[in-house]
């Protein structure tokens, strides 16, 4: 059986299915006979004990192997599990209503959820999610269903889920995860980004796949074509095994040259950098030959916290990143929260269109306290390496000036306090709103560089919600309209002697590479795993060839034509090399 989905991350893998069910566990027995009540109470106690042991073990493991803030989640879960009121209420449902232990847990959980979900507070809503989590762990333990503790996966598997959250992927024992397949999500969802950074395939947007296949089913996941094959026949297995070994050989081959610079045959050097969420990601980037960091997504520092991270906490992280890079560039993007990213301690009012709402620089310009704390931390770290500051979600010159004013005020404060920082620190913006791309010539006078954020730029320019599987197909970075916007940005920056990078996923796709090179892109920033391939492509062409290809691509009418054209050109170039 072959399913077609969205190719979220390249690569092919074969392995057993490992289903993660976030949904309700089926409870067959609601009520029990009166002489079975004691048994149900015992089942409850055993279930609680088993869950308690699991949570303690998980906490210890995560503390040791990840970090303490993530381990706190399990501590919170344990407190809820051992809540005397909760346990008493469940016991009461069993003894007075003769409910089965599992059903009693369900009833009591529902009561608490009603209370918690009614409270207009993001923190409480998140605790509601914790209650659900604890309750489903307890229910599974009562029913004797094995728990999917992502941390304790002990053999190679392909993860099958409705959707994966950052905390799911953080807990995974990545050594054994061969690939991801999910019901929802597109090529720029969290799952896809995570898969690409791990260098494993992902096929997303498969509808109801998580309820259609069973644990242990044989799967082949093809992240190049966006296909999932369930219980393949002998022929399919043989075909794919051959392709997997070809791909592995190719990866090995590319790895050999990953540390070489990306220079075209006629001597044009471009920077190939990596995108990171935490300083430690730099190691992965450098292993793949990154020339620096083109995007440090600082929101992860905020998302891993219970309260706003302090100036010192942030400073430590920025400094660590700068030092790890040993003078290579580090572009730090200021807080990009809002849209689909929420902070439990920073309430954002319900919005009809969160992606068009209160997010990123719009929040920072209003909450100057948050903005200044971050800028102070970045500036202080700037003395320890080669740091660039980048503002996200800029729509025009006005916001650039306003943000720069805040930066100036912050610098002045530091000077007064005699705290050293890099006085010549360079400042740039993310170009992700079409109006910024169109007025790039005016903005270029105000900044030192641009970095094109293609994920949002495409979403805004093409009016496509990339998370909606119904329209995700219209999300086409090679749309001629997008290419023209990109060209406009690059040309404007060069006219003013500035540089343009790209930190959206487009920068790491091989079909776009030569066209972007030809348009004059100076820096490509991508997930670490994509770097060796992109560097290799840059080294196979001349700048002159790339410019011709870009010019021809700009003349084409549809995204499909551009895609076919650039694929053909890439194949021609590769063939000529052999």
């Amino acid at each position: 059986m072959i399913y077609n989905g969205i190719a979220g991350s390249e690569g092919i893998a074969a392995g057993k299915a490992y289903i993660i069910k976030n949904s309700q566990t089926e409870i067959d027995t609601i009520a029990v006979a009166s002489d079975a009540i004691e048994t149900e109470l015992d089942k409850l106690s055993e279930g609680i004990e088993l869950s308690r042991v699991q949570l303690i073990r998980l906490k210890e493991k995560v503390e040791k192997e990840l970090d303490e803030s993530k381990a706190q989640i399990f501590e919170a879960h344990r407190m809820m599990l051992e809540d005397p009121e909760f346990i008493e209420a469940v016991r009461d449902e069993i003894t007075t209503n003769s409910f089965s232990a599992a059903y009693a847990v369900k009833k009591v959980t529902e009561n608490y959820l009603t209370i918690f979900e009614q409270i207009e507070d993001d923190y409480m809503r998140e605790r509601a999610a914790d209650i659900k989590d604890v309750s489903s762990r307890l229910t599974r333990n009562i029913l004797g269903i094995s728990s999917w503790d992502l941390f304790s996966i002990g053999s190679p598997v392909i993860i099958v889920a409705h959707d994966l959250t950052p905390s799911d992927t953080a807990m995974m024992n990545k050594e054994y995860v061969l690939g991801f397949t999910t019901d929802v999500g597109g090529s720029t969802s969290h799952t896809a980004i995570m898969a690409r950074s791990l260098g494993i395939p992902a096929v997303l947007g498969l509808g109801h796949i998580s309820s259609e296949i069973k644990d242990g089913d044989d799967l082949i996941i093809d992240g190049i074509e966006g296909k999932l094959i369930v219980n393949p026949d002998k022929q399919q297995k043989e075909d794919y095994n051959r392709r997997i070994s070809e791909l592995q050989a190719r990866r090995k081959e590319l790895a050999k040259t990953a540390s070489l610079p990306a220079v075209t045959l006629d001597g044009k050097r471009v920077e190939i950098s990596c995108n990171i969420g935490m300083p430690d990601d730099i190691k992965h980037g450098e292993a793949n030959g990154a020339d620096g960091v083109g995007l440090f997504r600082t929101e992860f520092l905020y998302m891993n916290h219970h309260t706003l991270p302090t100036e010192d906490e942030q400073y430590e992280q920025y400094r660590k990143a700068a030092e790890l890079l040993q003078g290579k560039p580090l572009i730090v993007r200021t807080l990009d929260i809002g849209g689909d990213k929420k902070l439990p301690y920073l309430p954002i009012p319900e919005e009809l269109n969160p992606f068009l709402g209160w997010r990123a620089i719009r929040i920072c310009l209003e909450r100057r306290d948050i903005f200044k704390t971050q800028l102070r931390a970045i500036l202080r770290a700037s003395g320890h390496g080669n740091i660039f500051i980048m503002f996200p979600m800029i729509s025009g010159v006005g916001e650039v000036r306003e943000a720069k004013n805040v930066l100036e005020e912050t610098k002045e404060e530091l000077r007064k306090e005699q705290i050293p920082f890099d006085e010549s620190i360079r400042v740039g913006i993310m170009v992700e709103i079409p109006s910024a791309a169109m007025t790039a010539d005016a903005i270029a006078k105000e900044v030192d560089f641009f970095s094109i954020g293609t994920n949002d730029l495409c979403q805004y320019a093409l009016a496509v919600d990339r998370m909606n599987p119904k329209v995700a197909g219209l999300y086409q970075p090679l749309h001629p309209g997008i290419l023209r916007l990109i060209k406009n940005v690059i040309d404007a920056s060069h006219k003013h002697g500035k540089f343009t990078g790209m930190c959206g996923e487009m920068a790491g796709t091989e079909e776009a590479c030569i066209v972007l090179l030809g348009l004059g892109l100076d820096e490509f920033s991508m997930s670490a795993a994509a770097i060796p391939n992109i560097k290799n492509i840059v080294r196979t062409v001349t700048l002159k060839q790339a410019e011709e290809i870009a010019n021809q691509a700009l003349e084409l009418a549809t995204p499909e034509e551009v895609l076919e054209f650039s694929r053909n050109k890439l194949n021609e170039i590769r063939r000529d090399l052999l």
Partner: protein
Amino acid sequence: MISKVITITNQTGLHARPASVFVSTASKFKSELFIQKDAKKVNAKSILAVLALGISKGTEITLTAEGTDEEDAVAAILALAEANFNE
């Protein structure tokens, strides 16, 4: 039985981390511990009940303790409240 009125002065109130710290401390004692806000009185050892009270900064709560270590329990919680729950 001892009763004490406490004004919550820390920024977050009995919420998030301070709530966990409060409940963990209360759970260390054998005595029965309750907190009351307005007409609602709940078990101070229940994180779910304490969170559901929604106690914000400036709220007055009444702490009641009954049991063999009631004095120690009240003293420990008072000290914690004065230290703003280590926020």
